[in-house]
């Protein structure tokens, strides 16, 4: 099921995060924004991290290739990767259609709530996108 874009948080680098509390722990579901997917233009490859990897906010989380360009994906939050959407790299054509549902990339158990504080609301992110377009 697709998440409501308006309720998501966004990094300046175009990754989204949906934070929920599960068994007393904060879990971020992370993906790439619809705007970025459109700009990335015909993705052909995606590399994802392994489960267990510990990342800080802003660290490289993976890489994608489109139109012979390799671009990094960055983690919007700090924590440990606890789940990876391993089917995604083989179904990149479906990412366009559902960036906030099928397009989730990883789930990260937050180690540091403060990493969320720097993220943008949907409105602020949309403003950033319109200014850069």
């Amino acid at each position, binding site marked *: 099921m697709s998440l409501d874009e308006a309720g998501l948080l966004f990094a300046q680098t175009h990754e989204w995060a949906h934070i929920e509390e599960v068994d007393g722990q904060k879990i971020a579901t992370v993906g790439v924004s619809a705007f970025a997917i459109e700009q990335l*233009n015909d993705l052909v490859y995606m590399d994802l991290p392994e489960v267990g990897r510990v990342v800080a906010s802003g660290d490289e989380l993976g890489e994608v290739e489109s*139109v*012979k360009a390799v671009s990094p994906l960055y983690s919007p939050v700090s924590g440990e990767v606890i789940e990876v959407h391993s089917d995604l790299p083989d179904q990149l054509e479906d990412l366009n259609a559902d960036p906030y549902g099928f397009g989730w990339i990883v789930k990260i158990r937050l180690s540091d709530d403060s990493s969320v504080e720097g993220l943008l609301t949907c409105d602020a992110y949309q403003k950033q996108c319109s200014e850069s377009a």
Partner: protein
Amino acid sequence: MNRTQGRLVPLRSFRGNENMSFDQLLQEIVDRTKVPTLRFYGWLKPTLSLGYFQNLSRRAEHPGSAGIECVRRSTGGGALIHDSELTYSLVIPQAAGSVGPRLDLYEKTHQCMIDTLAEFGVFTDPFHSLCRKDCADRSNRFLCFQRRTREDLILHGYKIVGSAQRKSRGSLLQHGSVLLNSSDAAPDLPGANDLLSQSLTPSEIADCFADKLSKEFGLHWNEQDFCVEEVERSQAIAGQRFSSEAWLNRR
């Protein structure tokens, strides 16, 4: 007109792992300094460069290049056989929020190359001007010069110029090849000299191309070769990445 100052690293030839390390070094420098940088280079030995996401096992698809050196690039696309060619790399600063490939950079640089080659009587066309509707090539053929993308430059039906990109936090690297003569490792891929019975040299194309880029992007090139510290840093990059078996075998 006031022009932005840029750095021009003059044409020199190196081994494949060194060439890729110098390109990464330049991207690190531009991330920091924000000074647009252009470099030209050649290859001391015929070298196959794999696209970043290509599997090494795919070399078996091209037996003709089985015996030559191999390096994995940090940029996308298919494998290239570098031999008698001019290679360029252009690194430009990028805003933090930029995303995706810079299609406009492919377009502008390749237009500069079209204009450059035309000055030597070599009239190329971008592939998109030759195809009817959908230019997308999803053939995934092993060699880059057997594939076609919109901005590739075509001469007599053969691709002779192709480029690829790599983004970092604060810059974008685009490097590309101008095929001058076919390689013994890929005799079925002719270069401009083979197709037109010419004898173009890398240095004359490099000089003209630098001038065209200068005008297109409003840049003044200051020639500056690598200093000792930069060579040492590129050697460290080679050790960690482009000379490493783990990097080559990562896919």
